[in-house]
């Protein structure tokens, strides 16, 4: 029996060895692995493959995940040597991933830095170190339906007046709604238009970490523009983004905040890119988050022995005008690099969002927005305000005071992470 076992085991070992050789994966030497989501991945693969020598001596492999959440999940779980060398991700990954030792800092030369707006580096920095290259701008802008509104509104009040005057006759479902970016990120420009910014910026472009918005003024504006005499929502601004896009496309909402990743859907439905920031109550504009997505350098690159090559790919491709222009011509988002933003390959939609960002964009600073030391982070507290006031009919000023206290606490706690 022993003899039979030995013979059998030898046969199994031989076959297993041969099969194992055939299926054993290996991180090839000199191979830079880039992880991206389901939209960016195929586009990056296409553009990188079209010009094979972005980094001399290295091969580049793009791994595409089925969704942004799947990408995040995989990156969160990556450990040891299982992670990518570069991950194309949201800026708010930076604080947590850097804090956990998954990201490595990037050093740019002065000329490379000059190709970007300095505030874009805010988004990808943690404790004074830069962890990636801004790849594209993610922002929203307000689109207005020219079949309903002949000219751009001058103020928030203009939009509310239009809605009240035409609500019944034009069967309007709402006046202004959030079609892209959700009730926190996408709705910041509405908060800001009414007087509540997540954090205040100084004229020098730095953050005012001492003051927060004035809750009495903001609450009074909410009461004046969004509520009726009984303290109930007047229907102008829904507390939920459900159905907003469909309603706008159907012509039953005159103004909508849309994301720059979906402008093609509106063009396809025959809408012109009448884009602008949300006008504020005093004639200015509500600030929108002009965040960037980043190509982030990971510490796995060092473990794979390709850290220098990965940095070269970041600089030669992701940070270059040529690389971003080629990529964004396929991807369709506004590029972050200045050299690429003037490219003739960009569409009217990409330029329209770029203009809106230039007029009223503020950096999206994860150190504040993700912070929950004030009681809740921005992402949870912002929609909670709309629910409390527009659905639960709570006092807009009292709720605004709570909101201001939360955001102020988050800024105070997060400033040490800048």
């Amino acid at each position, binding site marked *: 029996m022993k003899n039979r076992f030995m013979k059998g085991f030898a046969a199994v070992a031989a076959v297993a060895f041969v099969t194992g050789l055939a299926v054993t994966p290996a991180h090839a030497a000199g191979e830079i692995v880039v992880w991206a989501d389901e939209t960016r991945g195929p586009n990056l693969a296409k553009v990188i493959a079209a010009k094979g020598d972005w980094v001399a001596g290295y091969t580049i492999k793009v791994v595409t995940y089925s969704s942004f959440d799947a990408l995040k999940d995989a990156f969160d779980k990556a450990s040891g040597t299982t992670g990518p060398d570069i991950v194309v991700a949201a800026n708010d990954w930076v604080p947590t991933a850097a804090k*956990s030792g998954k990201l490595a800092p990037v*050093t740019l030369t002065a000329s490379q830095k000059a190709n970007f707006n300095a505030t874009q580096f805010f988004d990808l920095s943690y404790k004074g170190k830069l962890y990636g290259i801004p790849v594209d701008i993610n922002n929203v802008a307000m689109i207005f339906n020219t079949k309903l509104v002949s000219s751009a509104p001058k103020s928030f009040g203009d939009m509310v007046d239009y809605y009240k005057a035409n609500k019944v006759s034009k069967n309007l479902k709402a006046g202004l709604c959030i079609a892209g970016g959700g009730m926190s990120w996408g709705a910041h420009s509405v908060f800001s238009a009414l007087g509540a910014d997540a954090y205040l910026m100084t004229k020098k472009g730095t953050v005012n970490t001492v003051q927060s918005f004035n809750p009495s003024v903001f609450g009074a504006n909410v009461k004046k523009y969004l509520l009726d005499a009984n303290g109930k929502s007047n229907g102008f601004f829904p507390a939920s983004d459900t159905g907003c896009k469909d309603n706008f496309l159907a012509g039953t909402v005159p103004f909508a905040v849309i994301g720059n990743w979906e402008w093609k859907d509106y063009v396809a439905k025959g809408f012109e890119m009448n884009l602008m920031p949300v006008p504020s109550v005093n004639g200015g504009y509500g600030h929108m988050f002009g965040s960037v997505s980043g190509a982030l350098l990971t510490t796995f690159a060092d473990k794979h022995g390709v850290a220098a090559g990965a940095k070269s790919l970041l600089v030669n491709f992701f940070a270059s005008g040529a690389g971003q222009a080629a990529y964004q011509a396929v991807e369709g988002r506004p590029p972050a690099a200045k050299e690429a933003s003037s490219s003739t390959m960009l569409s009217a939609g990409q330029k329209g969002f770029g203009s809106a960002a230039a007029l009223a964009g503020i950096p999206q600073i994860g150190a504040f927005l993700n912070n929950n030391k004030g009681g809740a982070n921005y992402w949870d*507290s912002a929609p909670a305000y709309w629910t409390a006031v527009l659905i639960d009919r709570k006092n807009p000023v009292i709720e605004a005071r709570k909101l201001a206290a939360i955001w102020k606490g988050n800024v105070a706690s997060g400033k040490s992470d800048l």
Partner: protein
Amino acid sequence: MTLFFKGRFALFAKIVILSIVSAVLLMLCQSAFAQREYAIAGFLLLAVLAMNYVYLTNKRTVPFKFFLPGTLFLVAFVIAPIIFTVVMSSYNYKTGNIISKEEAIERVSALGVEPDENGTTFDIVIGKAASGEWEILVSDITNNRYFLSTKSTIADVPISDLKRNEFQVATEAPGFKRLSAEVLSQDEGYSKIQYKYLGEYFIVADQPEVGAVFRQTLKYHPENDTFINLQNGQVYRDNGRGNYANPSDKAQYLEPGWRAPNWFSNYAKLVTDDKVRGPFIRVFIWTVIFAVLTVLTSFAFGLLLALALNKAIRGRRMYRSILILPYAMPSLMSILIWAGMFDTEFGAINNILGTHIAWFSDANFARAAVILVSLWLGFPYFYLISTGALQAIPSELNEAAAIDGANGRQIFNKITLPLLFQILAPLLIASFAFNFNNFNLIYLLTGGGPKEQLEGQIAGATDILISYTYQIAFGSNTQDLGLASAISVIIFFLVASISLYGLRKSKVLETFG
């Protein structure tokens, strides 16, 4: 038929199947080993050896041929996760404390550098010195200075000795052996060197063509396990919770940290930390109420239907088919449909009732919705098992009771129900345990909400322990896996205890008849 179980063909098939399975497991073993997951690698190797031993020997191992696959899966997917969870519950394991201590020291050292005041960078060419060590040829074009630098030496090179390109970047120098991009891509050892520069500053080959000037600001001293800030002399010591911290100011610590044992701190936090304790108790109470109400309502409704359809009525088969439809439909779809039906603006329920109830914004309405949906999902199961159980009760018992003068209610209360409990008690307990951890329902229907975010609430009104745990572990940017593991362990013991207690009680019921 014997061809498949005996003889050369059977042996050949066995070897092929074993080989394929062994190859896959060995591949995973190698991968795990490469990722320093030694426990997993060891388990996979043992599994391969055990499999081959059991399936390639006879007689003595016959029982194991049936038990082995199940045992391996049990160890891999039940016992190991439980052990891992228990171990992790005694660790400070959260965002910022994910990696090992060795990795953390490496990262803190790598981050403990700062560029010079001007952020100076140079064009460099990488090669090797005559001694064989890494060397860079540096072009300081602004100052018209060119030099060769290694880890320990720096030597200026006269311009006349250099070969330069059109951008004035030096490409060749005497005694300098330039390496090609292909060679460098195979060995990035050059990027780990701190090339000598001025004073405390050094050059790092950040990319194959760019060198940046830095100085070290944090230095690790392994002899006393401390980091020292070279600029101000500040010492950072292991604080015992996974970070190097300033002993005089504990809030000042270096990042990243590592996962470090904190023994029972996570459990203690559940009792001592107000921010954790309050929500935990509230969530626990609601979890018990939810599980009990779900089981009771589903069982009562299922039993009612089973009793109704236990009598011969016209169309009974059709009714029975219809009643199990909710059970046949994937619960995921049912929950999402119900979520849509409860929508305030467009939901069918408000439309039918003619109301405008914000079902998921009000705590009581949200809880009622959760119970209603769990009833919908649960009653067909209880209807099915109650039907089966009713048919298993001998009709003679009812007939005898009727002859003795018992009325219908007495027969049901004194005979049918106790016998049903005797049969169904284990299933009721299992259902309670299932609902105690019914994550899908809560996550998909209400997301645990509503939550008073502006009041700083961290647990929603419909959060049950498992969804609360998920929220702590994965629900926000700051993940606390250690605390979540501690709550998971508590859930495990709670469910196990309640189930054991229930099973013992059910044995008492066995004696009823």
